[in-house]
């Protein structure tokens, strides 16, 4: 089967709508098909991977923990819009330390998160075969 480049674009915050959790579910299912998968976070979507989320007060599953499993699913390209972070007073240090182990580099632990400008993100998007927006 030919490999296609899939990008999942996340533009909404974690809770309040089902978009974020549905996107993550689709990503995990897609991972089973061994495609080239990347995720992008822009607008309120950047809140999805902010460190220290707590859902105790809203009675929902804290699925932010699941992002830590993505490395094991060979999903290690998480692009975050620099402008979207800045507009919300956030920086890379506010995000969860999401990592993967590089098979080709003696399983060294590397960061999956890459902060990019919207201009760079546009270029990455144009390389994709499929782009799904949530």
């Amino acid at each position, binding site marked *: 089967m030919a490999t296609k480049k899939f990008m999942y674009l996340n533009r909404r915050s974690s809770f309040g709508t089902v978009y974020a959790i549905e996107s993550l579910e689709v990503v995990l299912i897609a*991972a089973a098909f061994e495609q080239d998968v990347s995720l992008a976070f822009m607008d309120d979507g950047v809140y999805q991977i902010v460190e220290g989320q707590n859902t105790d007060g809203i009675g929902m599953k804290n699925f932010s923990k699941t992002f830590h499993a993505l490395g094991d699913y060979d999903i290690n390209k998480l692009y975050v819009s620099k402008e979207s972070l800045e507009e919300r007073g956030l920086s890379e240090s506010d995000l969860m330390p999401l990592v993967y182990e590089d098979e080709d580099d003696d399983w060294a632990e590397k960061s999956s998160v890459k902060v990019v400008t919207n201009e760079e993100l546009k270029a990455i998007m144009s390389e994709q075969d499929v782009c799904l927006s949530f």
Partner: protein
Amino acid sequence: MAQICGAEVDEEGFLVDLKDWNKDICIQMAKDDEVELTEEHWGVIDFLRDYFEEYQIAPAVRVLTKAIAKKMGKDKGNSKYLYSLFPYGPGKQGCRFAGLPKPTGCI
């Protein structure tokens, strides 16, 4: 709805409320599947429960195999070993025994 040891299960036998899980339920599920649980089964079941606690998902078989190899060694982290313990699939059957939901991406 069907019940096991007083706990509700769905049409595929997975616990409806994950908090209901206890060892008696697990043993009863295994008995219904004609599987006798050994220390080796419990090793995988404990692993699955820890994995769920940490990541909030039931791992796909491929990921489970890799993760077990890392934590428990290559002699256990392979599908032959895992299928010998859980003939209906370490993901599907193992997760059910462990009280987890059906693995995401289980196809």
